[in-house]
C-alpha cells in the first residue's frame, strides 16, 4: 500500500525508532516513511515493494528499495539484520500472515505492525447497514480492495499469543488519527503494535 505523508501512524512509528537504527519497511510504497525516518531520525533504511510504479517512485525518492513479493518471504535478508521491521497498513493484504510475522522477527529485532481494525464501530455499523465498510483507513470498495485478511485487534492479539510474540507497545488511533485509550477494539480505526520474540 502506498504511504502518504502526514499519516498519523508515521509519527508514532518514528517515535519508536532511535536515530541511527537499521529499518526495513515492508510494502514501502514510494518510500515516504523511510524518507521521513532518514531525514528526521537519521536511520539507515531499506524498503521492499512489489509494485513497479512504487519501486520507480522509491528509487526516484533516493530510497533503497528491493522489488519483491512479501508472500515469498524475505530470503535476501540475513537474520537479525535490522533493528526494526515495519509493516505499515499491509498485513491485511498478505495471505501468509504467520509466515510474514515470523520472517519479520527473523530479520529484525522488533516488528512494527499497523493495520485497520475491522471491528471499528463505524465498520461494524456499515456491515449492520448491509454494506462493506469504506473509511479513511479502509479506503476501498469490496471489489477493488487489496485486502485479503479481515481481522480485529482482538484477533491479532490472539494470533500473537498463539505465535509466542510479545506485544511491547500498542497504540490505537481513531479515524482522525487521535489516540484512543478505552474500548480500543470498538473505538479504534487503526492499530499500531511493537512486537518482539522471546529470546
Amino acid at each position, binding site marked *: 500500500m502506498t504511504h502518504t505523508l502526514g499519516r498519523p501512524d508515521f509519527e508514532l512509528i518514528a517515535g519508536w525508532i532511535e536515530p541511527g537504527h537499521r529499518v526495513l519497511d515492508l510494502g514501502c510504497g514510494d518510500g515516504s516513511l523511510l524518507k521521513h525516518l532518514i531525514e528526521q531520525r537519521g536511520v539507515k533504511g531499506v524498503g521492499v515493494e512489489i509494485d513497479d510504479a512504487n519501486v*520507480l517512485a522509491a528509487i526516484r525518492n533516493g530510497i*533503497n528499495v528491493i522489488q*519483491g513479493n512479501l508472500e515469498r518471504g524475505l530470503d535476501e535478508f540475513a537474520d537479525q539484520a535490522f533493528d526494526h521491521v515495519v509493516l505499515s497498513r499491509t498485513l491485511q493484504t498478505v495471505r501468509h500472515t504467520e509466515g510474514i510475522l515470523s520472517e519479520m522477527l527473523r530479520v529484525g529485532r522488533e516488528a512494527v505492525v499497523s493495520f485497520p481494525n475491522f471491528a471499528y464501530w463505524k465498520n461494524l455499523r456499515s456491515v449492520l447497514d448491509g454494506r462493506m465498510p469504506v473509511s479513511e483507513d479502509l479506503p476501498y470498495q469490496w471489489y477493488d480492495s487489496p485486502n485479503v485478511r479481515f481481522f480485529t485487534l482482538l484477533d491479532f492479539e490472539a494470533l500473537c499469543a498463539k505465535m509466542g510474540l510479545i506485544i511491547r507497545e500498542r497504540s490505537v488511533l481513531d479515524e482522525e488519527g487521535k489516540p484512543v485509550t478505552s474500548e480500543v477494539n470498538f473505538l479504534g480505526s487503526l492499530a499500531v503494535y511493537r512486537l518482539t520474540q522471546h529470546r
Partner: protein
Amino acid sequence: MPGQSVGVVESQRAHFDQPLHLRSGGILPAYDLVFETYGTLNAAKSNAILVCHALSGHHHVAGHYADQPENVGWWDNIVGPGRPLDTDKFFIVGLNNLGGCHGSSGPSSINPSTGKPWGAEFPIVAVNDWVHSQARLADRLGIESWAAVMGGSLGGMQALRWSITYPERVRNAIVVAAAPKLSAQNIAFNDVARQAILTDPDFHGGNYYEYNTRPVRGLRLARMLGHITYLSDDQMGEKFGRDLRNSAFSFGFDVEFEVESYLRYQGDKFAGYFDANTYLLMTKALDYFDPSREDNGNLTATMARSKANFLIASFTTDWRFSPARSKEIVAALLANGRNVSYAEIDLNFGHDSFLMEDAHYHGVIDAYLRNIKL
C-alpha cells in the same frame, strides 16, 4: 522515446605500453584499446560513466558515424540528451574489451612481435583483466573515480568486478541482467558453442587467418545456440510459433519453420563479421567469472570490499541469468549494509531485454542516475 540520440560520433584509440599481467599468469606487453566518448567531462572530472559491453558488444555504444548513418550504437536507445544516460549531465565512455574484434588488441589484431595476427597466441583474458585495462583508460582520460560503471550481462559482471577491484574508483555500479558467477548450465551452453568452433575444420587451431579462411560454420552454430538462450520461450512462441515459410511440410532438411529461418539468418549475420577466437575468449571470461572465488565462495565477504552504491536489475523472462541470480548479488550487498536497490522488470524479451527500450526499465535507470550527485 524521450530524449535524442547523441548523433555523429567518432571512435578513438589509446595505446598502452605498460605490460598487463593477466589472471592466467600471462603478460600482454602492450595493447591498444578503441573507445568512444559522449558528452563532456566536467572540470571536476566527476561525471564519467563507463559502459561495459557484453559478449558480442564493442565501443560503439551510441550515435552513428558520419559516413555510416545506419551503423547505430548497440545501446543507443539509453544514451543521449534527455535519455537515462543523459549526455547533458554525464560523460559516457564505451570501449572494446581486450580480446575483442572491433579494434582493440585481440586474436585478430597484429601481434607486433611477429607481424602476424595473434590467433591462438592471444592470451585468455579474465573479467578482472578487462577491469585493470579499463582502469588504465580511466587514468589516461583523467578519471579518478567513475560516477557509475554499468553494463548488462557480461557488462554487468564487469561493473560488479570494478566495485570489488577498485572500490575507491566506483561511486555507483549498475548491474543489469547479470549473475555473480555462471551456473553449470550456463557453462554447458558456452562449451557447446566453443565445441562448434573448435571442431570446425576451418578453425586450424585458432590460426585460421594464415589459411585465409574463417570457421564460419562453427561460429554460426555457436551464435544460433547462444541466440536461443537470449530469448524467452514465450517471445519465440509469439514471434514464430510453428509458422512455416511455405504452407505445407516439405519433408526435408531445408529451412521450413520461421524460427529456423530467423536463427540461421542471425547465425549467418554474426558469423559474417565476428571473430571466432574472440567468441571463444569471451565465453571463457564468462565461465571463469566468480569474484567470490577469492573468498572461498562467500560472496558476502567479497562484496564487503565494495564501497559503491548499487542498482541491480533483472528481467522476469531471463532464464540465462534469471532474477534469482541477481538476487544473490542483492543479498550479499544487503548483508554488508550497502546502499542497493533492486528492480525485477517484467519484459518479454528474455536475456536480451536489457537492450530493449521500455518506459519502466529506462525509467528505473533514469531515476537512479538522476539522484547521483556529481
